């Protein structure tokens, strides 16, 4: 029971960037911020991870793109976005004025796409940093294959590293045999952090219509049901690399977020929960703060040593 004057310092440092608190919003679940500005004060966010940006515009996948799953949801949005130029014109002006760190989520089909997109954004839309989505399960020849091979991961990270001094956060897929291997490859390539997890490959079938619910047959599973998978990933990745780990997957409550911090995450992201309760980030930050106070945790790294004996 910490004393009442004690003020935890919950800032998070990733590479050259400081987030005012560990609670961010996950890529693809918060658009470009403006969508939620009427519902919550964006300055309370530690970071905003944008919807994926690709070099060229993408219409995204056919309909339907979303279905509720037991304890979660499946999506198959398919990187629908305006492309790097559209992003610079339509989204950047608003994003650059936001009182929170904006991390641009990058996606592509091959190494060159990632490099070109990053170069273009470095020049025309300098923001807080980049989260590199090597793991989206919903695009054809896309990031998925790239994100599962450690050698390719190291290569693409090295290439991106050459092109920016800003924080590079590599987003890891849970759909691999050994996520720590990909995390180590990211670290070796020069990443400032890794974030995990992206969605799990999943599928649902409409037995009345006799076809898969999603147009793309399989999609990405997110929401509370994947919480244990994300926690196990963060726990293992944290012990495999020295760079910070950003934890996400299924966080609905402060308790879930604190579990991620105890498992070793330096920051967390809230995804699907934004849909359910746009104020989830506020509640979660409050709960983290109170937990820190109650346990006299001075900083986020104090969370990492709280668990005994693991």
């Amino acid at each position, binding site marked *: 029971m910490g004393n009442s004057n004690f003020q935890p310092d919950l800032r998070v440092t990733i590479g050259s960037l400081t987030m005012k608190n560990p609670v961010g919003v996950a890529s693809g679940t918060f658009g470009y911020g403006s969508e939620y500005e*009427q519902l919550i004060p964006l300055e309370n966010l530690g970071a905003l991870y944008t919807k994926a940006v690709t070099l060229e515009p993408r219409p995204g996948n*056919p309909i*339907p793109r*979303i279905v509720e799953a037991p*304890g979660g949801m499946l999506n198959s*949005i398919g990187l629908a976005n305006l492309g790097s130029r559209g992003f610079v014109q339509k989204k950047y002006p608003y994003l650059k004025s936001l009182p929170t760190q904006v991390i641009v989520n990058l996606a592509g089909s091959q190494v060159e796409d990632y490099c070109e997109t990053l170069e273009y954004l470095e020049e025309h839309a300098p923001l807080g940093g980049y989260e590199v989505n090597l793991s989206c399960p919903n695009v054809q020849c896309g990031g998925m294959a790239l994100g599962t091979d450690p050698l390719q991961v190291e290569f693409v990270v090295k290439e991106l590293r050459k092109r920016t001094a800003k924080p590079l956060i590599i987003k890891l897929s849970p759909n691999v045999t050994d996520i720590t291997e990909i995390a180590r490859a990211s670290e070796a390539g020069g990443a400032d952090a890794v974030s995990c997890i992206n969605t799990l490959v999943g599928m649902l079938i409409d037995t009345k219509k006799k076809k898969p619910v999603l*147009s793309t047959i399989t999609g990405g599973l997110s929401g509370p049901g994947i919480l244990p998978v994300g926690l196990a990933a963060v726990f293992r990745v944290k012990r495999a690399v020295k760079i910070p780990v950003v934890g996400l997957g299924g966080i609905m409550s402060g308790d879930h977020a604190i579990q991620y911090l105890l498992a070793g995450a330096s920051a967390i992201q809230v995804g699907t929960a934004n849909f359910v*309760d*746009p104020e989830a980030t506020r509640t979660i930050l409050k709960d983290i703060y109170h937990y820190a106070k109650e346990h006299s945790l001075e900083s986020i790294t104090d969370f990492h040593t709280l668990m005994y004996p693991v």
Partner: protein
Amino acid sequence: MDHFKPTIIRNTSIAQNYFELEFTWPSHSVPLPGQFLTLRIADQISPLLRRPFAFSGFNKEDRTASIIYEKRGPATSILSAQLPGEALDVIGPLGNSFPAPINDNRPVLVAGGVGMGPMFFLAEDFLKHNIHPLLFLGARTKAFIPNLDLFQKVQTLISTDDGTAGFSGTSVSCFQHYLETHENHQKVSGYEVYACGPNPMMQALDRFSRNQSWPTWLSMEQTMGCAVGACMGCVVKVITNTPPPQGFAYARVCTEGPIFPGHTLIWEENHGQQ
């Protein structure tokens, strides 16, 4: 758009499986016909996502709003058991709304099943502006047709698939039959069609009104994630001249919609949902 917790005033069955939910509206915003809200049904992980429902009415004086919903799955089942005095978790109003008819077009409102809510709201709104719409209400069978005061105030034509009430057939064929038997449609400068209902109904209506060159406004449904334009989950396929250059784009039902001009919709793919 606001996020707040209004109180249930009334939650009663108005026809088999159909409920009208009336609740307080402690927000400054004023919902318009065609707009919708989302409800977080229960503080549970299943049903997880908020559920969208169109406004079926709004009372400016009493500051009360209402929706009409069909009990179909887990969320609406839970909702149907909630009682006056209980709190709702609402985000709204969301989306665009139905435009007024151009020129002197007579509004034709076509409602199929759960689509009735927004049509009733729109009809009431037209009445307030002294516009007298024609209301077509279709259902599978009589039991799904409510009995409302509104039908006294608005010229209402009911149809059922099985002929147990009103015209025997779909609301669209009821409309066509009306036109054939009522020459007076020549006298009005034209019709403007507003519809909400199952996609096959709306597509049939769209095809028919395109032939007549009547403006058509259709309220689309898609499963929603965020309902505020952030996730790109709730899209319908629409014709476009702008990039991406395929001649189509995906428009968000929650933001660019739920109301779309009929002629912009690419039906082949939009059928996916129903």
